């Protein structure tokens, strides 16, 4: 009898321990749900308030003192041009730096410093990049409060993202590919250019898209360099009718971007402007969601398709 009693006690003990498994799994699901619910609330709230405001005029109008006529034309044009500038600087620099660190870098203290530095840069608050840009690009180099300054700032900001993505993509290429190319007499650069970069392209692309999605929503550093909030004109067009057809005047033009326009509307007391803010926010969220979704999709495809 005593034996059976012990057995029961042990069974009860096991059951009570297993109950904790169930409790924790439930807590875990609840924690996840808090994230999911917040995101849903944010998205739905913005959609309800903002979507009725979205029409063709909203995208083709300049900001205005009257909320009903205001639009985001200068904001989305500004965002597009700033993103182009950012990509122009961040992608080549980031890919080159990632290639160097994975394929060329010797193991010495210089490489160590560069690596530690990249890790630390990822933790620097974005507003500090804004201060760097204000002191360096705007005043020291004399670029002014222009699209060029903003593009350079955001390029520096997303550089660690691009570098890390490039390194991971390059590292996942098997050594045999490199050895095969070297065996045929290719130089190091030929291996990089003809093999490493093409094979790591989807991975790099994912990193670039995630970086750009982050850059498009960044507000603080661009406010810090002193971008204006009320811009009722467009930067000079990049294409011209007369030769040389391409003009870079827009680089030095004052500008505004989507998040700044939204911030401006959010900080006004009138309810009508808050509706505009919701509409602009909805567009912004859709844009970042689309970019992140694309990155996730590419990664998913990549994982399925590539088998070395």
């Amino acid at each position: 009898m005593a034996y059976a009693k012990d057995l029961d006690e042990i069974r009860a003990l096991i059951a009570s321990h297993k109950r904790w498994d169930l409790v924790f799994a439930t807590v875990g699901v609840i924690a996840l749900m808090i994230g999911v619910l917040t995101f849903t609330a944010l998205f739905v709230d913005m959609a309800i308030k903002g979507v009725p405001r979205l029409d063709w005029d909203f995208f083709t109008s300049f900001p205005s003192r009257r909320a009903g006529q205001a639009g985001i034309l200068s904001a989305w044009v500004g965002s597009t041009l700033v993103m182009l500038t950012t990509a122009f600087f961040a992608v080549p620099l980031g890919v080159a730096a990632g290639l160097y660190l994975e394929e060329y870098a010797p193991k010495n203290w210089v490489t160590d410093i560069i690596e530690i530095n990249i890790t630390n840069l990822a933790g620097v608050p974005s507003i500090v990049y804004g201060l760097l840009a204000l002191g360096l690009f705007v005043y020291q180099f004399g670029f002014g409060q222009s699209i060029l300054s903003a593009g350079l700032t955001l390029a520096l900001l997303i550089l660690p993202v691009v570098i890390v993505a490039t390194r991971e993509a390059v590292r996942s290429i098997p050594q045999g590919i490199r050895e095969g190319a070297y065996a045929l007499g290719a130089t190091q650069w030929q291996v990089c250019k003809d093999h490493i970069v093409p094979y790591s392209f989807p991975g790099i692309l994912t990193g670039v898209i995630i970086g750009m999605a982050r850059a498009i929503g960044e507000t603080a550093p661009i406010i810090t360099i002193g971008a204006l909030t009320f811009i009722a004109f467009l930067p000079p067009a990049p294409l011209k009718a007369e030769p040389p057809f391409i003009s870079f005047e827009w680089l030095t033009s004052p500008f505004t971007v989507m998040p700044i326009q939204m911030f401006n509307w959010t900080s006004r007391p009138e309810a009508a402007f808050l509706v505009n803010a919701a509409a602009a926010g909805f567009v912004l969220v859709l844009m970042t969601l689309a970019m992140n979704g694309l990155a996730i999709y590419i990664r998913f495809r990549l994982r399925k398709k590539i088998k070395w």
Partner: protein
Amino acid sequence: MSAVPGLACSSMSPLDAGARLKQRRARILRERAIESVLFLAALVSVFTTVGIVYVLVKESVVFFTQVSLWDFLTDTQWTPLFDDAHFGIMVLLSGTLTSSFVALSIAIPLGTIIAIYLSEFAPFSVREIAKPFLELLGGVPTIVYGYFALLFVTPLLQKIYPGLPGFNILAAGIVMGIMIIPYVSSISEDAMRAVPMSLREGSYAMGATRYQTATRVVVPAAFSGIASAYILGISRAVGETMILAVAAGMQPNLTFNPLEPAATITAFIVQVALGDLPHGSVGYQTIFAAGLTLMVLTLVFNIGGHVLRRRFREAY
């Protein structure tokens, strides 16, 4: 393309040896040049750090010739743009620390629980859906979170606590915490998944349940990685700008009460940058002094985290 001249070479007569040598030299030179260019690209990140330190220190030095460091650290008022100017960074620091505290008391427990759940409990399909979703949560622009904190969370909290002012640290901090969850959870989860399976198997073999294995074997073994996740979360919280600038108000206020409005270091920088301050004025320099304080603060946390990681590092 450069493979072609090499091929052409081999078809030439031996008399062209000189030309071949020249070509090989040109090739080596080109390789060197390319390597240097790539090296310079990698150095850009170092230049960025040097640039940040240079700009912050340069402007702050000018600032501290006009305001003593003692006043900066001990004054209890922050009114840099008034005639009777006071520069007590404590006032802004209290806002930054209070909002970070609120955010982290949400992000760290929830982020850790989610990480443990995803790494040790969740079935494969749940993880496959949850991870990209969390990434999306971290990808939403902070200005959108600011809008959400001001116009959704604050009214919600006001229903529970009617005396809550329209601008307050609490709502901003809560939303900030939810924004930081993905950063904490994804890095912690990576650390936990890097724990060798044999440790788990050993634990199960001793009759431990999942929960016991997770909390007593996996978490301690992954602690150094989890610590880095926390440090990154703290850095994000301290440096977060737009949520606070929108939802916590821009009024300097020496308080540790999350129910009050208060400006943070970052919100102050935004406020000054929105105005039209002449380059070189004291007001212009204050934002660099504030930025330097922010950098020192994140540096202190990072060094603390580094020490913590060293202390708890487990090698397999």
